[in-house]
């Protein structure tokens, strides 16, 4: 098969003249290079043969996808990477691990779910990772690693440390939107990343010829103005040479490459796949495209170097790996979160010296965090505005609400990046950047847009630390505007409190005062976990006393904002203002209401909330989600479980209606939880 380049003579290819030169230098590779490549391929093949055999015996839990047929790709690409370079992988990731230098015994132990595994048995085959080798994880979400690698490259580019990132993915993933978002991002930012599509002709049982609109996935590079190359993936030399160009291009600051390697899936989709959907002749043909056999033949039959050493390495790994200790069931909730801000106590707040708005408080926190730590970057749509135009145009927007205005001028375009409208792409990239040395603060505009990047939030950012056995932290903040009342209607008003709070691994914060907004945001940025920071639109213009100097407010701590004895109003976010309003009215009726501002939805400060209710004996939970399965239900359950004996009445909930947020003012007003609703709930307990 000939190497095809897309676009054939486009400007990007012309700019890559130096890379083309590098290609010329590697043609007719040294025998040493080929022998080293073969040794790596044999290591991968022998490992996978053994996995297949052991899996059949039934002791290996779950299911496993082997790398048979693509060995030349991992070997040929990773030969150009150092330990510091970063890769993301797929459900078919053993080959990538091995080529990136992961320890075989720890890999085997992981496949058997042992505490001694690379991920302490939390990940298994489909979520195997080794951060010490720059292997940022297999990914059981098809396409899940692509945006992460883009972000790792963003970190390398921002930090200027010369690292390169590689995303491996299959032809199935080539039809995921996040690939297209990522290619565009990497192209406009000229990121040092290589996208390697291992096209084995099948996505599970779906042939690429049916599911993919083009013959060469690499031809899609044209649409993004980047270089696309297709090579025969069973030809080590071809892969090695093309990867050399692509990695060179990345390191030289010439931007991304889409490198497609056409390989054969020699085995089933997973071990044991009966493959009824696949003609026998096509399977036989696939077996003939064996990259290991091809390279052995190319080098001469005696030439499989170190075969014996590899065999004993693998025997030892399979001898010891499965004998590792099982994880202790008592540790099931270990490593969901990194220690809070590296266990440093929050910086205490000096006395508040002036009044500013909630929005100004958010801005001050961002500015202070960026000034204190170069690794803090902000990105999102329209956060500066006028991207690249220069003069009075650039930076003029400063975010939809103006929270990021002026940051571009203060910190420059490397650290303040406007993004295209690609939520999955840039939230995934921010997550990848957080794995690779940055502390990104993403402005997602509205929480209602979060479903566009739920995979990146839920499957990637939130789960990574746990799935990888505590190997990594994900210091990421996702800022979002939430809340109804501004006539923004159905798709710009959700709080999504419950959705975020239900994702283990996320911290979720909803401040109600300017002082808390500043202190909690600074603490969220200092925290090593992904934090969802929810800013209620109804609060942006409210004012309050805020210290000018930077300070932090601890996450996971509720605040008693009005003491009282007769009833506890447990309020979330902007509802705290309604609860305070209700408490004032109740005081006029001789009822002393205590108001607890929950502040942190996850982790929830059950102690403070329950201590209040245990004292007052009555609780009304007030929050702005639709009632069914809303956050109020969870808080009410926590209160009931812990204070049942002290309760004189069932816990009451004041919530939004069970509908999307309506537009028409009388309807929206009816949808919202109000002070009047709180008063009725309290009066019903008399």
């Amino acid at each position: 098969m000939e190497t095809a380049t897309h676009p054939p003579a486009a400007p990007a290819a012309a700019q890559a003249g130096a890379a083309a030169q590098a290609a010329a230098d590697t043609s007719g590779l040294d025998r040493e290079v080929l022998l080293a490549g073969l040794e790596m391929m044999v290591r991968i093949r022998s490992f996978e043969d053994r996995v297949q055999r052991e899996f059949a015996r039934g002791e290996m839990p779950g299911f496993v996808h082997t790398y048979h047929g693509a060995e030349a790709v991992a070997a040929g690409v990773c030969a150009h990477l150092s330990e510091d370079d970063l890769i993301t992988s797929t459900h078919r990731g053993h080959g990538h691990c091995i080529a990136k230098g992961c320890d075989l015994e720890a890999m085997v132990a992981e496949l058997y779910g042992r505490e001694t595994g690379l991920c302490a048995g939390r990940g298994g085959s489909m979520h195997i990772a080794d951060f010490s080798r720059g292997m940022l994880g297999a990914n059981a979400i098809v396409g899940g690693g692509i945006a992460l690698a883009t972000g790792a490259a963003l970190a390398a580019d921002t930090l200027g440390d010369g690292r390169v990132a590689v995303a491996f993915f299959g032809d199935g993933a080539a039809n995921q939107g996040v690939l297209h978002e990522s290619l565009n991002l990497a192209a406009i930012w000229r990121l040092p990343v290589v996208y390697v599509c291992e096209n084995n002709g099948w996505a599970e049982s779906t042939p690429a010829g049916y599911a993919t609109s083009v013959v060469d996935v690499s031809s899609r590079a044209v649409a993004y103005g980047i270089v696309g190359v297709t090579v025969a993936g069973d030809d080590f030399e071809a892969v090695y040479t093309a990867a050399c160009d692509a990695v060179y291009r990345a390191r030289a600051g010439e931007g991304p490459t889409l490198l497609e390697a056409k390989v054969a899936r020699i085995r089933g989709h997973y071990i044991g796949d009966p493959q009824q959907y696949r003609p026998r002749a096509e399977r036989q043909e696939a077996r003939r495209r064996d990259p290991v056999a091809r390279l052995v033949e190319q080098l001469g039959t005696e030439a499989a170097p170190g075969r014996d050493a590899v065999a004993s390495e693998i025997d030892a790994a399979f001898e010891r790996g499965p004998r590792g200790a099982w994880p202790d069931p008592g540790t099931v909730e270990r490593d969901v979160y990194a220690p809070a801000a590296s266990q440093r106590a929050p910086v205490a707040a000096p006395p508040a010296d002036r009044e500013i708005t909630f929005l100004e408080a958010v801005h001050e926190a961002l500015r202070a965090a960026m000034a204190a730590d170069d690794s803090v970057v902000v990105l999102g749509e329209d956060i500066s505005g006028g991207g690249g135009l220069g003069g009075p145009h650039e930076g003029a927007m400063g975010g939809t609400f103006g929270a990021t205005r002026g940051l571009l001028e203060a910190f420059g375009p490397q650290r303040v990046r406007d993004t295209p409208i690609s939520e999955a792409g840039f939230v995934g990239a921010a997550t990848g950047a957080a794995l690779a040395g940055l502390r990104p603060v993403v402005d997602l505009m509205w929480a209602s847009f979060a479903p566009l990047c739920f995979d990146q939030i839920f499957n990637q950012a939130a789960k990574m630390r746990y799935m990888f056995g505590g190997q990594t932290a994900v210091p990421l903040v996702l800022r979002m505007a939430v809340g109804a009342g501004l006539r923004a209607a159905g798709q710009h008003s959700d709080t999504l409190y419950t959705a975020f709070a239900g994702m283990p691994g996320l911290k979720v914060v909803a401040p109600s005062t300017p002082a808390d907004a500043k202190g909690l945001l600074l603490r969220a940025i200092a925290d090593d976990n992904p934090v969802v920071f929810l800013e209620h639109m109804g609060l942006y213009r409210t004012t309050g006393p805020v210290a000018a100097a930077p300070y932090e407010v601890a996450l996971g701590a509720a605040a008693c904002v009005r003491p009282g004895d007769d009833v506890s109003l447990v309020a979330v976010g902007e509802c705290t203002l309604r609860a305070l309003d209700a408490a004032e009215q109740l005081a006029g009726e001789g009822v002393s209401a205590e108001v607890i501002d929950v502040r942190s939805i996850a982790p929830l400060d059950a102690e403070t909330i329950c201590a209040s209710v245990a004292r007052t004996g009555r609780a009304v939970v007030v929050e702005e989600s639709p009632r069914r399965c809303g956050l109020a239900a969870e808080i009410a359950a926590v209160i009931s479980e812990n204070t049942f004996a002290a309760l004189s009445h069932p816990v009451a909930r004041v919530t939004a209606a069970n509908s999307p947020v309506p537009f028409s003012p009388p309807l929206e007003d009816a949808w919202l939880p109000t002070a009047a609703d709180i008063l009725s709930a309290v009066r019903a307990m008399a």
Partner: protein
Amino acid sequence: MLELILPKTGIYEGDVTLIEWLVAEGGEVAIGDPLFLMESEKIEMEIESDTDGWLHREAEAGLEAPIGTRIGAIAETPDERAALCGN
């Protein structure tokens, strides 16, 4: 010689059934040739050979047994196969 077992083929971990041999005792097989039919969780599937060689059968069709149960072997030579049968 490669041991032949009733293989795990997915997430299912219960007993499986050897439905039918697809190659006669002593038959020569190539990698990828169907060896036997197996039923796992009511799904029938052909199990193919992972290697080239000569089949030796040790279990009868109809055997219902746990995953991992040995049912035969693929010998590297006809002589090795004969030795496995004891003739």
